[in-house]
């Protein structure tokens, strides 16, 4: 590999909601062009952590840097593509109208807009359903449309919160292939998941439990360190220790 650039740096980030501490002293570095997975059970704090990266939420203490700039900053908004865990789509509009709306927010117009809409919809295999009302979409289709919207403005960092929930294995496979393509074009992808086999496909993995980062490393490292065959086993070892 060439010289690895640091892309995201999370320093001593803690987050509390009232008395409940959701994130506890998280330290993490994510490099350019890698697929980084955040693995943890439901309620571990994955969504909360990812929101600190987007600047949508502020940590109670600690700092987040994106491209050496302290978050939150408006300058970096166009560099981030965020797909929330729950779909934020306009159900009474068609998929195309949703895409048009979001691309206009990013300042995409005319031919560029049409080209990007075609590209992202091809990627998530929704080209045939472009003119359907989103309210008539299935759950998986909505997830894919959200993914398409997150990728519309060709962001350098793609933050995806449980992107493949409700998507069938075949399509999941093709979406992961798309992630690999994006990665090769230099895009950094951060994915949260609670599905172990999905975690295997990430370059590096951060394991979260009860708001603490219990392990970081490549999937191979994590398995080797714990003498386990699968990520699932590794997770249990780290969690039980």
């Amino acid at each position, binding site marked *: 590999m060439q010289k690895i650039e640091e892309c995201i740096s999370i320093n001593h980030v803690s987050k509390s909601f009232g008395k409940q501490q959701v994130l506890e002293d998280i330290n993490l570095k994510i490099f350019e062009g890698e697929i980084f997975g955040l693995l943890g059970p439901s309620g571990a704090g994955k969504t909360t952590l990812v929101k600190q990266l987007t600047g949508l939420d502020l940590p109670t203490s600690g700092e987040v840097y994106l491209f050496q700039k302290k978050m939150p900053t408006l300058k970096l908004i166009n560099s981030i593509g965020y797909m929330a865990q729950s779909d934020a789509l*306009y159900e009474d509009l068609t998929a195309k109208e949703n895409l048009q709306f979001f691309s*206009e927010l990013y300042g995409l117009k005319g031919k560029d807009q049409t080209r990007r809409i075609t590209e992202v919809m091809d990627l998530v295999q929704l080209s045939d359903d472009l003119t359907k009302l989103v309210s008539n979409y299935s759950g998986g289709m909505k997830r894919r449309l959200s993914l398409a919207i997150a990728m519309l403005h060709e962001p350098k960092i793609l933050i995806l919160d449980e992107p493949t929930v409700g998507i069938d294995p075949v399509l999941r496979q093709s979406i992961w292939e798309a992630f690999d393509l994006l990665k090769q074009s230099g895009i950094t992808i951060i994915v949260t998941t609670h599905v172990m086999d999905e975690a295997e496909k990430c370059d590096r993995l951060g394991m979260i439990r009860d708001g603490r980062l219990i392990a970081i490393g490549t999937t191979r490292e994590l398995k080797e360190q714990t003498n386990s065959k699968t990520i699932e086993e590794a997770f249990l070892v780290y969690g039980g220790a």
Partner: protein
Amino acid sequence: MRVIALTKRILRQIVRDKRTMGLLIVAPIFVLTMLHFVFGNEEYTPEIGFVKVPEIIVQQMDVGDDAKITTYDNEKTAKEDLAARKIDGYLVFEGNNPAVVLEGSDPSVSGATMKWLQNALPSVSKNDNEQLMSIEYLHGSSEMGMFRLFRAGSCRIFRLFLRVFNCRSIVLTGTYNGHVRKIAR
């Protein structure tokens, strides 16, 4: 830029949303139609009896097509016809003073009759503002009685009153297919 995108999106959503469209377009039409039924009684052609109206005045009057005129020789037959609702009111001259007797159960009809009479009787409404025209009602309510002495040329309040009153009669009788005039009696 963003404002335009936002506006476009909201407009699209409004067009899609049937309930909002309904509130925005159908509801005003509905309300206006209802208001038209309540207030829009301008086209009514009153049927008016003339009792002993001097020939000179009739000649001066601008009768037109807006009212149906029946001439009576004496007040008694006019009153009978009024009671039988063949006419909506009659104009009677006692000496030089005109008097109006209205059937009075439907304010909108009374209003139309009065309006026509004021327009038709120039001597009453224009030349001689101080002259009082006496108005009587055959079935007049006590509320209407307050307006027995009707000062010609200052009929605004009277009309407003009629309208408000008419509203009330519609509220009372509104279920009968909108044939308000008949039912109100």
